[in-house]
């Protein structure tokens, strides 16, 4: 019996036929599953996962951008008033303007400023936190004038805090009002 006859005989056998079909089915299915279905499903699931990740990232970016836009619109509303902050807390000590403003306050309230001095200034600043320098002043005038001077000083835009205030009675003033000598130490803020 040659090979051809053997194959013919085997293919006519139902049992052999069924087994052959089943074996071929599983082998071909395995081949397709490995080389076709696996890569396709892998790409599909990978893309789905990337989509989910990107949606999370997108939400973060969107939130951040909304915050930025919100801040920008708020800044836009106060843009013309931002200079007030620069005037209140300038970049650098700007001692000249402080002295002028104190002299101006003295002139406005009628007190005489007999002494004024500025303490050491630290010029090595980071520019992120407010620094201060002290101004010592001695003024003479009536109690009411001294009171007005302090009020005037506090009404100025440049941020100042009174660190030390000493009132010394020095008799009567020219208008027969009780005269006082005020020694004041003012801390002036800058960036």
């Amino acid at each position, binding site marked *: 019996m040659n090979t051809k006859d053997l194959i013919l005989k085997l293919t006519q056998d139902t049992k052999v036929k069924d087994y052959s079909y089943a*074996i071929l089915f599983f082998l071909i299915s395995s081949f397709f*599953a490995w080389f076709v279905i*696996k890569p396709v499903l892998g790409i599909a699931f990978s893309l789905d996962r990337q989509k989910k*990740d990107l949606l999370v*990232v997108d939400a973060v970016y969107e939130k951040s951008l909304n915050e930025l836009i919100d801040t920008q619109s708020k800044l836009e509303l106060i843009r013309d008033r931002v200079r007030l902050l620069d005037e209140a807390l300038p970049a650098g000590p700007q001692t000249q303007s402080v002295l002028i403003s104190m002299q101006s306050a003295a002139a406005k309230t009628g007190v005489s400023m007999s002494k004024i001095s500025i303490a050491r200034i630290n010029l090595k600043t980071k520019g992120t936190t407010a620094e201060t320098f002290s101004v010592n002043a001695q003024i003479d005038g009536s109690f009411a004038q001294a009171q007005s001077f302090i009020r005037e000083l506090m009404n100025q835009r*440049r941020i100042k805090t009174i660190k030390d205030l000493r009132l010394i009675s020095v008799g009567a003033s020219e208008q027969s009002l009780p005269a006082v000598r005020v020694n004041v130490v003012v801390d002036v803020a800058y960036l």
Partner: protein
Amino acid sequence: MKQKELLIISVTVFITIITWIVADIYHISTTQKIVPVEASMATVKKTTIDTSVLDILQAKTNE
């Protein structure tokens, strides 16, 4: 080799491949790296501007 044995081998191969595919897909969908968000963008916080401070400053004199 008998045909029954061949069938068992092909079924085993088929089941192994299907299991492998399922495990691979599970691996892809759970362990893929998340695209990192830039730190500068992730830390943008809600800002509040207290305009009452500006009102107070405006009321003061600049001398």
